[in-house]
């Protein structure tokens, strides 16, 4: 019986694929589907000359068709790469679909890169065709063309300032579309036939990894990969055609491609492009997106601006804000997650919403936000809680370019600030022996472009992609990313030791600016701490604690007590985290100088150089492991004017209490 129905089903599928366009398994077919199902609904908006201009799905499909045919008339071949460079603009998004309609691959590039930086990608992807935003990008490509004459066709969207350019192969998008209309008359049916030839497994887009280590690599993703990721996410968060996003993050970044292109085409919602990079906050308020994405630094700067403006507000408003933010901290997350709260709390929160949270969200342009995501870096718990407490459903996700930014998502009502959520629908996640997170599913990259060596290295025989991140699952099945896998070590008893993870926990305290943890091949973990001079200085002033400078303040017993308190809170958290409970900090010291990139202790992006620090401060590290309570050290420092000098100090060493591992870890 089962076999019979399966055969019928298969036959039906064959009929369907014969009429190819009916199976929306590539992006161009999705576009055509929306153009026939909801032709007049808005697909794209852009603010131009102060007015929001709208492209319906029908308009979008028509323009894509003309652009694609224009490209075909210039000889754009199947499988060829099309560079797309510029800010988020409707016609550049259409460029993706135009390339894909012809079986080509869209290659979005970072718009703020200088010509020299672009050369590598232009060369690697063998770019002959580019669709760019404006004069700025045209200039860069013309410069790049001097060394790479293969860049034959440069097509621009905004003609301003390009009136007098007459470089060969330079053409406006308007002209390209006019060519497309001519081509259509000469080759009727060509476009539909080309779209029909597309297969879901074809590469649809190539996103270059940032290349912090070595040269950038082109990550080849198929239609299937991004459609899987997009529809999984859309289902998970119940996205519909009525949703709205503001796309303002670089188009070359995987997150924007997922949110503003793949999910928009899968769910059929509207993508709004800001007027300019400077107007994003205003545009956000005018559009009121229902679905929002931002890296932690944006949430942070919004909150900082808010705090500054609150300080200028009237006394009455300040009091209201302070009072209702306390209410929000107490009840906000429970209200959002639908947990029961006392009646009085419900009333207070309702009132707060009327007077403070509502107007606040309106000012931030977040009144309509149903789902907001952040990813890309660790977000501080206070920051995360602030947004959730005023009723913004901010969640975290985990993913990378190689996985279409789709591995783990936090389900509504199960939000933890220190996890990235559960494996998303259709994704298999497992933890390797060495703690590395391995991922399998349709959203894993097809290959690194022209790099079979790198592809073989990162995808194993069983089809798992090696993320390079170390992680653990907690007891509720939520994944916690703890460190880069290469930084993870082991204590002498074999337990995993993830320095970055502990350091981040310490740094979430406002009094701690930097932390460096040691423990690999040792029997316990120790830490160097840098206090935050502003925060601790403020704290000291309020306590009438007199100090002469950083060294003096860092050595105070009161400060040690303050830091000890922070360290023990971290220990208490670690005690509940299974294997990591062994990583509780046994001893710590507060360093007598601030770690500084000028002294090579930090990288320019402020990452600690653990090995270098261990060598430089070897006497301190030995003292931490020897049981001494004080250690004398002399350190060379470079001053900002380039001179160098020595500072000497007697650094105290403090013990911290460790807690027994919480029982459930043993189970």
């Amino acid at each position: 019986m089962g076999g019979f129905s399966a055969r019928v089903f298969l036959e039906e599928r064959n009929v369907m694929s014969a009429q190819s366009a009916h199976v929306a398994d590539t992006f161009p077919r999705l576009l055509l589907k929306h153009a026939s199902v909801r032709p007049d609904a808005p697909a794209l908006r852009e603010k131009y000359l102060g007015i929001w201009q709208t492209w319906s799905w029908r308009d979008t499909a028509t323009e894509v068709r003309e652009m694609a045919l224009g490209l075909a008339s210039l000889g754009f071949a199947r499988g060829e790469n099309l560079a797309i460079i510029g800010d988020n603009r409707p016609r550049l998004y259409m460029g993706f679909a135009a390339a894909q309609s012809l079986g080509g691959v869209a290659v979005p590039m970072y718009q703020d890169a200088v010509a020299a930086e672009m050369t590598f990608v232009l060369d690697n992807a063998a770019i002959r065709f580019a669709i760019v935003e404006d004069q700025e990008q045209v200039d860069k490509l013309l410069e790049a063309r001097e060394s790479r004459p293969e860049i034959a066709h440069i097509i621009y969207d905004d003609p301003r300032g390009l009136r007098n350019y007459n470089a060969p192969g330079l053409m406006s998008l308007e002209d390209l579309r006019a060519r497309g209309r001519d081509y259509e008359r000469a080759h009727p049916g060509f476009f539909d036939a080309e779209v029909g030839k597309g297969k879901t497994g074809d590469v649809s887009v190539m996103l270059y990894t940032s290349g912090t280590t070595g040269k950038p690599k082109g990550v080849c993703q198929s239609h299937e990969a991004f459609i899987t990721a997009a529809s999984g996410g859309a289902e998970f968060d119940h996205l519909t055609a009525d949703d709205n996003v503001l796309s303002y993050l670089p188009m070359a970044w995987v997150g924007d491609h997922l949110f503003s292109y793949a999910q928009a085409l899968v769910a059929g919602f509207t993508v709004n492009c800001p007027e300019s990079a400077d107007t994003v906050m205003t545009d956000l308020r005018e559009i009121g997106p229902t679905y929002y994405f931002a890296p932690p630094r944006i949430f942070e700067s919004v909150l900082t601006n808010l705090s500054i403006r609150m300080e200028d507000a009237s006394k009455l408003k300040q009091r209201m804000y302070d009072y209702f933010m306390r209410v929000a901290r107490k009840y906000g997350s429970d209200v959002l997650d639908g947990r029961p709260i006392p009646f009085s709390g419900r009333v207070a929160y309702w009132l707060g919403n009327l007077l403070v949270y509502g107007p606040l969200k309106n000012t931030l342009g977040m009144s309509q936000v149903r789902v907001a995501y952040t990813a890309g870096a660790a977000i501080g718990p206070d920051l995360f809680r602030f947004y959730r407490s005023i009723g913004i459903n901010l969640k975290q996700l985990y993913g990378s370019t190689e996985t279409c930014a789709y591995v783990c998502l936090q389900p509504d009502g199960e939000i933890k600030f220190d996890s990235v959520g559960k494996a998303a629908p259709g994704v298999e996640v497992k933890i390797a022996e060495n703690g590395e997170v391995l991922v399998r599913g349709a959203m894993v990259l097809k290959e690194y472009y022209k790099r079979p060596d790198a592809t073989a290295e990162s995808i194993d025989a069983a089809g798992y992609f090696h993320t390079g991140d170390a992680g653990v699952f907690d007891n509720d099945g939520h994944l916690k990313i703890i460190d880069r896998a290469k930084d993870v070590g082991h204590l002498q008893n074999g337990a995993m030791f993830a320095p970055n993870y502990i350091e981040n926990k310490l740094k979430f305290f406002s009094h701690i600016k930097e932390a460096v943890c040691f423990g690999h091949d040792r029997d316990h973990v120790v830490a160097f701490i840098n206090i935050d001079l502003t925060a601790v200085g403020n704290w000291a002033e309020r306590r009438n604690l007199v100090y002469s400078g950083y060294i003096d303040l860092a050595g105070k017993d009161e400060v040690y007590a303050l830091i000890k308190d922070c360290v023990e809170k971290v220990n208490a958290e670690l005690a509940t985290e299974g294997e990591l409970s062994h990583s509780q900090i046994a001893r710590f010291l507060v360093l007598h100088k601030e770690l500084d990139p000028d002294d090579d202790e930090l990288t320019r992006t402020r990452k600690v150089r653990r090995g270098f620090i261990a060598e430089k401060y070897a006497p301190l590290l030995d003292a931490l492991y020897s049981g001494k309570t004080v250690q004398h050290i002399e350190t060379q420092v470079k001053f900002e004017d380039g001179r160098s000098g020595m500072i000497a100090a007697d650094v105290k060493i403090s013990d911290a209490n460790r807690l027994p591992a919480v029982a459930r870890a043993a189970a």
Partner: protein
Amino acid sequence: MSERKIGDVILKVDNISLRFGGVKALTDISFDVREHEIRSIIGPNGAGKSSMLNVINGVYHPQEGTVTFHGEVRRDMDTHQAAEHGIARTFQNIALFSGMSVLDNIMTGRNLKIKSSFVEQALWFGRARREEMENRRVVEEIIDFLQLQHVRKTPVARLPYGIKKRVELARALAAEPKMLLLDEPMAGMNVEEKQDMCRFVLDTNDQFGTTIVLIEHDMGVVMDISDRVVVLDYGKKIGDGAPDEVRNNPDVIKAYLGAH
């Protein structure tokens, strides 16, 4: 860079002398401005540069001499007529309506283009409505051109100095002038603001073909962007020509750069 086509003389001042009581502000000044060019007026403090601009757009009436604009010879003209003839200007000290938004400030530059009556405007009726939409479109194009989108609705009083100067330029451009008089558009700016302003002045000249007469103190700026330069000292013209000629003129070196 594109080549601008510099045309015929459109403004000619002949033997201008201007006195305030016994003070001779300008003595026997003659020079001309060609269509589409950027013409700078330089000179030490009190040389009469601003007075010269004020003569051109009719604020001051010289005792002697004539101003010929587009072949029309005049001696007395008021500012309103100057504006109607297509001369717009910005001021050394910012002269904007500080309580109004950037958009409204620029809209005031369209004043002369509004033909509808007070009643029509009050009732937002017929011609008034069409006109306002048309004017708003022109203003939005200028906002786009000068990249003022992010402050469109911001009251001018809240803006930093460099942006205010740009709003002034925007308002002057809103009148779609044939000739633009800029009185120290870069005074008091930092290097970055100056660079932006230079680019906008050049773009204006390039895009709209506007003839620009510019007073400026920053020699680097003047020498970089001007087609020709007039040098004044104590109300007298002591040099006139291309930047390089002026730079090497001994009188100019003595008067202007003298101490160095």
